[in-house]
């Protein structure tokens, strides 16, 4: 359906998601991709290839750039406003390199201890220079052309995807961050202005136009958001490798183009999700970019496959007609299907005009026709079961001697897959099926249950569709007696009646009966995933949340704040346990840093030794002194072994470091989540300053009180 206007084959593998295009001389676009052996290749068909320095020319139009570390982020863009050229930024798990391909010079080479998982170049609020923003282990760092880190903030989990889009239509781009904890967060400067929870790790984000952006999840879902509202989404069994926005049919509206792991490319209308074009590559799509690759003044959509196949597609109005014709054909098919469905339904009503009596049916008819007593119904409810341990139960029951053969529950985020089946053994069927539920995350879930009902022994079933709603904080069950009191508590005050807060409780928790109260609200909660907590509010609006789970406290505060429409909220945290942990962590990080330096020095020593050993052994060889040569090489071999061992030590050390840093970042993020609005970004900023200047006491104070 979609015909490429050019296609070429580059004899290199392309790593997924690491594809970009840049005009390194300011004029000619060059496709740039990460390839095997920690290299990046620049495809430059329009001007003579560049060599020297980091670059090596392989074929006439391909230059290779050695990075010597596996590449984890790649983007090209105008980082320096004064130069009218694109700069290539390459991220690895430890460093960020900004490289001027045309001049063959490094702009900067910075250490990024949190790693680079995703890279974008662009402007963010409050900073007038373009930044290269790297998303790593729970952190976001922005560097300007001089390598100065102008931007720093923390986020909930490892960053998987980044995009810049004008989320709130204020003419300035916001940073949209997708992370492994299924969340899409929108940052205006350091402040989170919006947060959407999805059902899987967010692996792809792309700007479409205005406040619209596309997203992709690790489970094969693609969709479009306009601000916080999801327009549409579709799910496929294949993996999404890349998403990109491009106007293929020339109608001035961009389509969301998705590249899949099976090589399929499809373009969907960004408002409906309807497929407009599709094409197939021979292997998985690695990435998509757009550029005027033919230098004819029009941009093409350029798709790269992991095997180095490159195809370019042009936006074209004439294609529109084919789309229309195809759509008409599909419409006719769809209408015909609807017609058939309706006819079938009519036929059924016709047949059911007279209800049959049990004795009118033969035994085979009883098995095949799914006859059930008239008026049989099925019912599904969520209850709190007490034994053996308190938990939530979904109970599906049927009436009138019928049995529930099976239930299928479609609920996103509740089970491993998108659905769960309960299929009791044949000899153990009854009119009731119960399923214990353990929500893995605190998100509201819609349960769509399908109950398969029939008389015993039947081979066909009536399917009853039932739905239930699991509120956000379902995994916290109220209990009568106070729990073993956790030592951490968060206190703050709101100007609000207790009754309003009680309403919030009723909406967000699974309660046996509605909570009512007059002047004092005190709820003890049993957490299904461990760690009990309690919530207290008195008439003066003073609220105290007692829990050791900081994240949960943050969720409570954020949810309550949005319910009560609080723009800013400052809180006080008494969290000795977490502070102790933080202290330990910071100490570990310091120690690890020392070890790293020591190891690095050791390695330098070794490499000097190697050089001398090689020279010595080679000399011996030339002098035909076999004994000494052998000795030299044996020593070399041993040294090599030492180096490898050293490497293993370094890599575990590094892993440890990364892990600790991630935890530190997470504690800061959680501390920020305890506050709302400007106080939230204030915590992040002040924490960063405190760490930078090494003032640990100040850090603790900020975390506790919300400001220095």
């Amino acid at each position: 359906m979609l015909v490429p206007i050019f296609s070429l084959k580059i004899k290199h593998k392309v790593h997924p998601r690491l594809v970009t295009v840049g005009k390194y001389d300011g004029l000619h676009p060059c496709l740039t991709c990460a390839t095997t052996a920690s290299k990046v290749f620049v495809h430059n068909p329009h001007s003579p290839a560049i060599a020297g320095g980091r670059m090596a020319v392989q074929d006439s139009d391909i230059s290779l750039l050695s990075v010597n570390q596996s590449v984890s982020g790649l983007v090209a863009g105008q980082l320096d406003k004064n130069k009218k050229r694109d700069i290539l930024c390459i991220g690895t798990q430890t460093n960020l390199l900004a490289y001027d391909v045309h001049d063959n010079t490094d702009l900067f080479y910075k250490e990024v201890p949190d790693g680079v998982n995703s890279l974008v170049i662009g402007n963010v609020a409050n900073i007038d220079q373009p930044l290269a923003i790297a998303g790593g282990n729970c952190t976001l760092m922005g560097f300007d052309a001089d390598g100065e880190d102008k931007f720093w903030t923390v986020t909930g989990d490892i960053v998987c995807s980044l995009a810049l889009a004008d989320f709130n239509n204020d003419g300035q781009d916001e940073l949209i961050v997708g992370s492994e904890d299924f969340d899409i967060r929108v940052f205006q400067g350091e402040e989170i202005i919006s947060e959407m929870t999805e059902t899987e790790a967010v692996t792809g984000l792309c700007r479409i136009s205005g406040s619209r952006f596309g997203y992709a999840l690790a489970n094969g879902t693609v969709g479009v958001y306009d601000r916080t509202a999801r327009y549409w989404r579709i799910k496929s069994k294949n993996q999404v490798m890349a998403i990109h926005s491009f106007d293929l049919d020339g109608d001035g509206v961009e389509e969301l183009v998705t590249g899949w792991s099976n090589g399929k490319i499809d373009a969907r209308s960004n408002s409906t999700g309807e497929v407009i074009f599709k094409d197939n590559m021979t292997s998985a799509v690695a990435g998509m970019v757009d550029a005027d690759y033919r230098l004819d003044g029009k941009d093409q959509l350029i798709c790269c496959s992991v095997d180095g196949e490159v195809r370019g597609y042009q936006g074209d109005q004439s294609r529109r007609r084919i789309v229309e014709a195809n759509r008409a054909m599909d419409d006719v098919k769809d209408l015909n299907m609807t017609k058939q469905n309706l006819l079938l339904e009519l036929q059924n009503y016709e047949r059911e005009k007279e209800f049959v009596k049990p004795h009118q049916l033969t035994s085979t008819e009883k098995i095949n026709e799914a006859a059930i007593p008239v008026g049989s119904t099925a019912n599904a409810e969520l209850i709190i079961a007490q034994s053996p341990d308190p938990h939530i139960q979904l109970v599906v029951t049927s009436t009138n001697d019928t049995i529930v053969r099976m239930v299928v529950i479609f609920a996103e985020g509740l089970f491993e897959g998108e659905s769960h089946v309960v299929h009791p053994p044949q000899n153990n069927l009854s009119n009731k099926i119960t399923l214990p539920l353990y929500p893995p995350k605190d998100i509201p879930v819609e349960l769509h249950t399908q109950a398969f009902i029939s008389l015993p022994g039947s081979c066909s079933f009536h399917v009853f569709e039932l739905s239930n709603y699991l509120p956000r904080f379902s995994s916290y069950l109220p209990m009568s007696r106070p729990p073993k009191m956790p030592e951490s508590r968060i206190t703050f005050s709101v100007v609000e009646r207790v009754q309003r807060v009680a309403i919030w409780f009723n909406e967000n928790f699974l309660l046996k009966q509605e909570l009512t109260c007059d002047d004092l609200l005190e709820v003890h909660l049993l957490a299904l995933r461990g760690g009990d907590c309690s919530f207290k509010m008195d008439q003066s609006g003073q609220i105290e949340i007692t829990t050791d789970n900081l994240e949960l406290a943050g969720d409570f505060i954020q949810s309550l704040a949005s319910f009560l429409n609080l723009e800013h909220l400052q809180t006080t945290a008494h969290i000795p346990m977490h502070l102790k942990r933080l202290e330990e962590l910071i100490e570990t990080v310091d120690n690890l840093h020392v070890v790293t330096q020591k190891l690095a020095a050791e390695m330098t020593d070794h490499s000097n030794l190697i050089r001398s050993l090689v020279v010595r052994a080679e000399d011996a060889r030339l002098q035909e002194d076999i004994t000494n040569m052998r000795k030299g090489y044996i020593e070399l071999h041993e040294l090599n072994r030492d180096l490898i061992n050293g490497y293993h030590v370094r890599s575990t050390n590094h892993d440890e470091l990364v892990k600790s840093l991630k935890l530190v970042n997470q504690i800061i993020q959680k501390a920020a989540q305890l506050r709302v609005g400007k106080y939230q970004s204030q915590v992040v900023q002040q924490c960063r300053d405190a760490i930078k200047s090494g003032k640990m006491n100040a850090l603790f104070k900020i975390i506790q009180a919300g400001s220095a």
Partner: protein
Amino acid sequence: MELDLNVVDYLQVAVTDRKCMKILPNNDKRRVTQKIVIGDKNGILQCFGIKKRDISSIFKLQPGPPITRVELGGALGTPQDKIFVASGAEVRGFSRKGKKFLDFNTNLTETISNLFVSGSDLLAGGLYIYNHFSDCVDQGYYLSNDKINDMICLPVSRNQEDKLIPILACNDRILRVLDGCDLSCEIEVSGAPQCMTPFKGNGGEEEKELVYGTSDGKIGHVMLADEQPIYKWEISNDKNFGGISCMSHHDITGDGVNDLLIGRDSGEVEIYSYDVADEPILRFSHNCNESVTSVQGGVVGALGFDEVVASTYSGWVTGLTTEHMQKRVTGSTSATTTNVIGAELDEDTEKKFAGLRAEVETLQMKVKTEREKHAERTNKAVASGNSALSRATTFHVNDRFVLSSSDASYQLSIEVQTAIDHIVLQSDVPIDLLDVDKTSAVVSYTSTQPNASASGGNDNFLLATYRCQASTTRLEVQIRSIEGQYGHVQAYIVPRLQPKTCVLRRYPIRPLSLHQRKHYIDEKRPMNTLTLSGPFSIAEIHSWIAFCLPDLPERPPTGDVVTLYFINTFLDTQLECIYRKGEGVFRSDNISSISILKDILTKEATTKKITLKIQYELSDDSIAHTLQLLHPKLDHQLMLAKKVQLLDALQELRVHEGNLDFLAPEYQSILLDAEEIKREFQKQPARLERLYGMITDLYIDKYKFKGVNVKQKVPQLLETLDSYELPALIEFFQQPSY
């Protein structure tokens, strides 16, 4: 050369059975297009032609019992334009104008599923019975050993004095050629034949040749000769397409030679033309997305343009025409987009579309009122408290569960007349579900605890939900079973119908699930023998064997002694079953097959309280022989795994060095064939593990017969396999085990 054909959807009728659509020949001198006649499961027979891309109905009969076959006939030597329709046990005849001239009840006990008309001879076949009528007078019958799938008669252009040669395509992989009502010759073919057609439409020069298509997708050409049939060519099914559901001949290429038209269960319509040596060459392939029920050739849409007309399961009649038309552009549903292009609207299609939409809207209204009425009735019935029953909406399901011999796995395909919402697959045996590229449904597995309900003996080894994308009517799944483990796979099918209903289908996984019927075995192989004797009837032992092995009819074949041959599609080992009343002899070169048979047969006999005398005779050579048989497969897999492992490293080397001339040719060739290697590796995931599993079974079974349990030696065996050498493995098997 590829043919370039355009797809035109004509109309949709209700669900159709196989071979229920025909194109009427022209007997008019005037040049007009040919008419299509089609019968559906609602019992409606209709005949229509195409006038200026519009359907013009010739006649349409009232609904009745489902139509199972439509055939054409007529007086010998005249155009065959009389329409014969089979439904139930009745055959009706209509003229091309729709006038009924025949209403004949055959009094067969089975539903007529096969029909053939030649002059005044009428041949009708049910599942097992073939009956011959001449001028509606019974001439005799023939009872087949296995299901009759199709039936044709040669010669095609028969004269009054010519003898009629009926040929039955039977499920036990045999084409039975009859002489009157007696068997004259059996032609063995490589798969269960599903349909047949005379070669080139006329049966070849001597009118004794035919083409058959099998349920596992093979097409073959055979010529009847006086004594032995002469096999010509056979097209194998490398791409793992579905079975052949229908075929016919028509000259679509315009070269004066009739081309072979094929319709498959998996939705493909294929056109083969014959070369000088009469070998078929694929010229065209199109996928209809649902199984093709009949395929015909003729001039239908426009004069002067030949076309292929196919009917599909859900009742679509689709043309593939040689006429090149401008893509007909129509307005779309939304007004805005219409304005954008505005200019080119095909009025006809627009009108048709509007008509259809109006039709659907009225239907929707009608359904709405009916729905309300129904709810009212239900309430009334509940209120009055009577014990009435309400039934679920019924719908047709077309399903197939076929062993594909090329990769020793089962293909399950489920097709519903309307869009599928979701399908839940449940299995009480350990099986693997493999991904099929064509299927777009989203799968989600429910993790199961096999031991949770062990007492019930009805474990859920597998629970998977396939949620289908909008307007999917067909689902294909590939299932891999393990021999020795048996039970059922169940599919709960829920279509997008209101009110929602579900139909349950069960598919057996037999103990020797990977075996397939064959017509001969290699007598030279060393064989192990198992002999059972006891007081059982032939029907009893047949039912036990039918329980163990696929491809067997329910009733025992006629004769006192039954001989059946099987081949293991994965290992290529063989099995011979010879049984009679009171005795059964099983011989196989694979000791595992014998072991499984022994276990199951004794279990079955015990439940029937029959004491069996069991004797077995093991051939030690058979082990070495079986391992030898496995050797090339194992070797190939190991090499492949090794190559795949090396591939990445080699590719990295290439990037680093730029030039790979220094590498050994072996490695260079790996790089050269990289694509091929990867594809092959992906195509057969876990094949090596499967082979290992079978070798382990072989080892355990060998010693089981000696009464030794060697479970504790299995790790040692796996070690031997890891550093695989055939002699070492044979050696390991020969070691005494104490």
